[in-house]
């Protein structure tokens, strides 16, 4: 759906990372973790295109300021990288945005009995929080969070409040283990057994490494991709990624916006 939204809060959670809460129609609660929103930052031509962000959290809060005494909200967690996110970061309570949401296909929850392993790189943690909230209701959840340095490790306390066990790795060792989060993950998998499902979101090289690990350990694994998007609804074909059967003659392009952003890793071509 398309709706006008009011910014409720917009706070810096780590240098260069912001968490924004926005009003949303009640129907937004039908969204599943891994789905995303497209935000029109300004009602002008600069920036022109909408910006995509994973849903970080959803819910309802009690407030006297609406007739029914409560208000549905949705949250995003974003990193300031360019013009659009810079402008977002400058918004305040009461400012307005135009949103398309929820978009795309989210994560499939899988068997409750199975342990759930979440792997996030930097701001890739964003959709994993919403996911963890759902999964932790019925399953054991572990989070592996990676980044370049401690500033890239976001909202760990929030995950822990959900009962999620967290593992942290940074390139420079300023928080958690020094090294790649996928190394920490692999060490953990090697040391433990049992049936597990992987859920990953982060930079492409990280996802590729996770897919490799899933393959080696023969685990189910869903990854959430990024792609340069114009429409967000499967119409412009800007955001595509190669499906497993792709070749020049028999093209198998999938839209990250519509067929994804979450894909079982086996559905994709990882070259």
């Amino acid at each position, binding site marked *: *759906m*398309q709706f006008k939204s009011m910014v409720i809060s917009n706070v810096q959670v780590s240098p260069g990372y912001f968490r924004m809460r926005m009003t949303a129609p009640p129907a937004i609660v039908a969204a599943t973790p891994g789905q995303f929103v497209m935000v*029109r930052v300004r009602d002008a*031509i*600069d*920036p*022109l*295109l*909408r910006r995509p962000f994973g849903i970080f959290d959803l819910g309802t809060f009690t407030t006297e300021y609406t007739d029914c005494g409560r208000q549905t909200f949705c949250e995003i967690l974003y990193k300031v990288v360019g013009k659009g996110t810079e402008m977002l970061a400058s918004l305040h309570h009461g400012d307005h945005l*135009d949103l*398309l949401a929820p978009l795309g296909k989210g994560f499939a929850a899988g068997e409750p009995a199975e342990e759930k392993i979440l792997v996030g790189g930097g701001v890739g943690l964003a959709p994993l929080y919403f996911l963890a909230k759902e999964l932790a209701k019925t399953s054991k959840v572990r989070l592996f969070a990676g980044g370049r340095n401690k500033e890239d490790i976001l909202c760990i306390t929030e995950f822990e409040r959900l009962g999620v066990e967290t593992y942290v790795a940074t390139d420079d060792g300023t928080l958690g283990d020094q090294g790649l989060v996928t190394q920490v993950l692999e060490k953990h998998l090697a040391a433990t057994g049992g049936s597990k499902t992987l859920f990953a979101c982060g930079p492409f090289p990280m996802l590729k490494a996770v897919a490799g690990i899933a393959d080696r350990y023969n685990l189910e694994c869903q990854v959430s991709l990024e*792609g*340069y*998007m*114009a*429409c*967000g*609804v*499967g*119409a*412009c*074909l*800007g*955001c*595509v*990624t190669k499906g497993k059967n*792709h*070749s*020049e003659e*028999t*093209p198998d*392009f999938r839209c990250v916006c*519509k067929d994804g952003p979450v894909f079982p890793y086996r559905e994709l071509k990882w070259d």
Partner: protein
Amino acid sequence: MAKPDLSVEISGIKLRNPVMTASGTFGYGKEFSQYLDLEKIGAIITKGLSLRPKAGNPTPRIVETPGGMLNAIGLQNVGIDAFIQEKLPFLRTVNTPVIVNLYGNTLEEYGALAEKLDRLPEVAGLEVNISCPNVKQGGIVFGTDPAAAAEVVGLVRRSTSKPLIVKLSPNVTDIVRMADACVSAGADALSLINTLTGMAIDLEKRRPVLANVTGGLSGPAIKPVALRMVWQVSMAVTVPIIGIGGIMSATDALEFILAGATAVQVGTANFLDPSAAQTVAAGIEDYLAKNGIGHIKELIGALRV
């Protein structure tokens, strides 16, 4: 006051209003169907279709530029057979004319595709995209050479009895010559403009942003060029013109109509606002009502120069 009449006709295709969706920016209509009422717009123009499925270009395929965007989708599409099986059934349920945008990389492809489309009753008309490299002639673009364009148009003309719209490329020295060539070769109408060829560079990576290096510029940035070309062509030809390029609002659309366009297409604006085409159509109606204009036709080409 009576409701203003927005209906126009493009070589036999009756449109309830002059606002269509531009090829490649609106998928096959269905993608946008939850965001607007497809029966409140004039026509749906589908993504550029080819004879066989086409993979398109590697990614990145799009990038934002000041006031616009570049795309190098590479005309990815499902091909005519899958189009008929997977896309037409939905379009059949919508009471709005469907115009199929098509292209080929050889003359023969254009001809064969037009023949196949000619047999489909759901297709109200064809829009021929001539901004494609002619692989047989070393990649020279059909749409930048009047003789090559005339050849394509002539062939398609002989392959179909449906209304034939030719979509012009703006990357030419003399748009009027291209327009004349296409009309002489049998075009019933002209749509313009397609995208301007442009490029974006990633300074840090020292690479073009688009995998394809260059791409097509669309959006508000190109509106002045589009308006100029529509105006120039409208003075030179008698067939209806469909104005395209950076239309974001009813005001933009009406400017194209004043310049001589009988109808318009909304492209990039669909990305900013998925209901843009409907909003533009409603805005035109409002404008006519407020200004006591009974019929949109009173504005077509009404620019006083």
